[in-house]
């Protein structure tokens, strides 16, 4: 479903992502963890077509995101960390605009909208202008917009920002259900407890390098930390990488 093949991305001479090889099959909920500036958001922006990789290839359901961005986008739902909504559109009008892009007929579009409005409990405010929404309301609306077209791939940057406990539970349950239904989910987060709770596989990235990938159990075995939490694992892995000199390198020295 999602394939990163030798993906590399640089900003001028600074390497943000170096030779990333990763495949996320259907039905997997993959969590990408890493410190600030590790390359998580850059990886996500390449996946959704906002940045082009400097080298390598990125595919969504077999479609190259550079060569066929529309085909790739059609199969993908995206929840950014700072969602943008049109202030002067209501939530329902925003959802209508999004679903119009996916070519649904009128009846199917209405059904999808009602399904997501109900799922994310938007009915109380969906007809108000979105300029009046709180951050959490906006986040729920953007989740609804990302799932409207029943995407095969879901990409989420920091899913829990601004959500109250009830909404956070709702989102976690939804992600689990989607993964069980066959959606490939790529999620970047700093909330390690969420990754620990719902991710089927975890990757830890630092200074643009994927340091390790596996299930929580596999990571524990690999690091010989059998009863550790994900937080302990994360700190151990990133500290070890720092100690081994995997510091940021300029492209000229990489």
């Amino acid at each position, binding site marked *: 479903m999602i394939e990163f093949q030798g993906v590399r991305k*640089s*900003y001028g001479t600074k390497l943000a992502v170096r030779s990333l090889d990763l495949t996320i099959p259907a039905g997997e909920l993959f969590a990408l963890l890493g410190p600030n500036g590790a390359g998580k958001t850059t990886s996500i922006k390449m996946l959704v077509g906002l940045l*082009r990789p*400097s080298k390598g290839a990125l595919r969504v359901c077999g479609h190259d995101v550079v060569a066929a961005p529309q*085909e790739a986008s059609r199969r993908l739902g995206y929840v950014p960390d700072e969602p943008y909504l049109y202030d002067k559109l209501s939530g329902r009008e925003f959802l209508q605009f999004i679903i*119009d892009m996916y*070519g649904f007929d009128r009846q199917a579009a209405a059904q999808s909208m009602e399904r997501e409005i109900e799922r994310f409990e938007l009915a109380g405010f969906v007809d108000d202008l979105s300029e009046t929404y709180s951050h959490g309301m906006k986040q729920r609306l953007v989740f609804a917009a990302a799932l409207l*077209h029943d995407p095969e791939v879901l990409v989420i940057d920091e899913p829990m920002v601004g959500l109250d406990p009830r909404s956070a539970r709702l989102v976690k349950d939804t992600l689990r259900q989607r993964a069980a239904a066959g959606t490939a989910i790529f999620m970047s987060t700093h909330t390690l407890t969420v990754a620990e709770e719902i991710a089927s596989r975890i990757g830890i990235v630092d200074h643009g390098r994927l340091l390790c990938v596996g299930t929580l159990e596999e990571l524990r075995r690999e690091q010989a930390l059998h009863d550790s939490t994900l937080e302990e694992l994360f700190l151990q892995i990133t500290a070890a990488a720092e100690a081994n000199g995997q510091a940021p390198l300029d492209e000229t020295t990489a």
Partner: protein
Amino acid sequence: MSRAIDANEEARAFWAMRWRMVRNVVTQALREARLRVSVVTGLSLIFWVGLFLLFIDGFQFVNSLLEQPKIQQQTYGAIFDIFFASLLVMLIFSTGIILYGSLYRSREAQLLLTLPVRSARVFLHKFQEATLLSSWGFVLLGTPILAAYGIVEVAPWYYFLLILPFVVAFVHIPAATGAILCMALVRWLPRVRLHLLVLAGGMAIGGSIYLAWTVFRGAEVASLNAAWFQEMIARLQFSRSRLLPSWWLSRGLMEAAQGQWSESILFLVLLISNALFGQLVAWWLSARIYRVGYTALRSQRRARRLPGVSWADVLLGHSLGVLSRPMRLLIIKDIRLFRRDPIQWSQYAIFFGLLALYFLNIRRFTYDVGYAEWINVVAFLNFAVIGLILSIFTSRFVYPLISLEGQRFWILGRLPLARDAILWSKFVFAVGATLVPSALLIVLSDTMLRIDGAIVVCHLLSCVVLCTGLAGISVGLGAKMPNLREESPSKITSGFGGTLNQVLSTLYIIVATVIPAVHCHFYVASLREPGEPATWLVVQGTAVTLVIGLAVTVLPLRIGQRAFRLLEF
């Protein structure tokens, strides 16, 4: 199940979204901001009608001077050619700059590029918006001129019908050119885009100064007579190139006004075909280079700021030595934010730069020395224009300052700092930022007009009063009616408080201009009478202005101060 939609469905979806947005904005404005809508509509109408009447008078004046119809038409042709050619250049720049922001820097573009939408559709959507944004001023300014011309020339009915299609077709040509230049610059020269923009802007300003200089050079020899007009027409030859769309526009409209409808339609078709072709090229190019350019621009490494305090801040800190340290720091913080926001200082620089350019050329028109009262009127009109530009600045940038502090009050509110100090720092910042350039412009204008010394002093004192008054109104109202939820200064300005601020500022400018102007007028008249000049009139006018200015400064500040002390964040 989703499917790929065709280009027409895509267009319909975008238009439907835009229509919903417009409907919501209009409904909301009529429901929540009737006063603002009425004031804006009323002022626009007054502005349009004022311009229309002014140009009716202007065209009749030219007709009275130039009796031969052929010379009249040549003169009007030259006026239209230079007017539309200037607009052509301005529209290329403004559309390019607006598109740069909306295509490459906006969060909306980021959203749209993650949807299964063609890049060319995103471009078209933003292009249409940019064209509208950059050309509405042209419509507001151009239509009264063209309507007045039609009335004076007793043009046939279809001339008035053709104005709109001509203008709409014309604005699409510079808009498409600006769009193509913008996309090409980002795609192929992303690293040097800023330098190129600065260079192009500098060349445009330099070119304008050179043109103004050459056109009016040596024109002091005579008054506004037929020979003067003929000389001007000869000097404006460059704007009459047959390849310029501005020439097609002026020629087409003038043909229509003369009853030559078939010639006029030919020019209209020429404009429409070129507008469509330009848009087609821009659209074709966007499908190929927009997304690539977008990612290339986003892939650049940001320049690192050097640590340390800049020399400008150190200098400013010393020059504000009389103020308390917290106030100094707050003012330096505001100036730092202003300096680092090109949108703010570039508008400021353009407005004052254009005024300086105009003042530098005042003496080139030689209807001056003989008419002392006329010079006095021109000097006070200049004063009023400076005031109006200052009021735009204070409404747009000073009024929202307190509201914007609301977002940062978690830090400001916890500092060992009296709230009054925050308010006073805004006031001092506003007075300083407005007084320095406006006083320089007043001196420049008065020097070029060779104004009497007593009146220069009156102008400068009135200028101080004007700046403190406008700052007092904006800071006081900003504190009395803050909008603490809004992060965008333009949205804060467009609210009720912002509109009230603009209206009160305009009224104050009228009062602060008319009172000293009338007194100075009678003083100037007394200079021609035998006996002592009535200098007391200037003193009286200045004193009355000072008293009014003091009241206008202190009252809103006191109201704002009281409200700000009780404000809960």
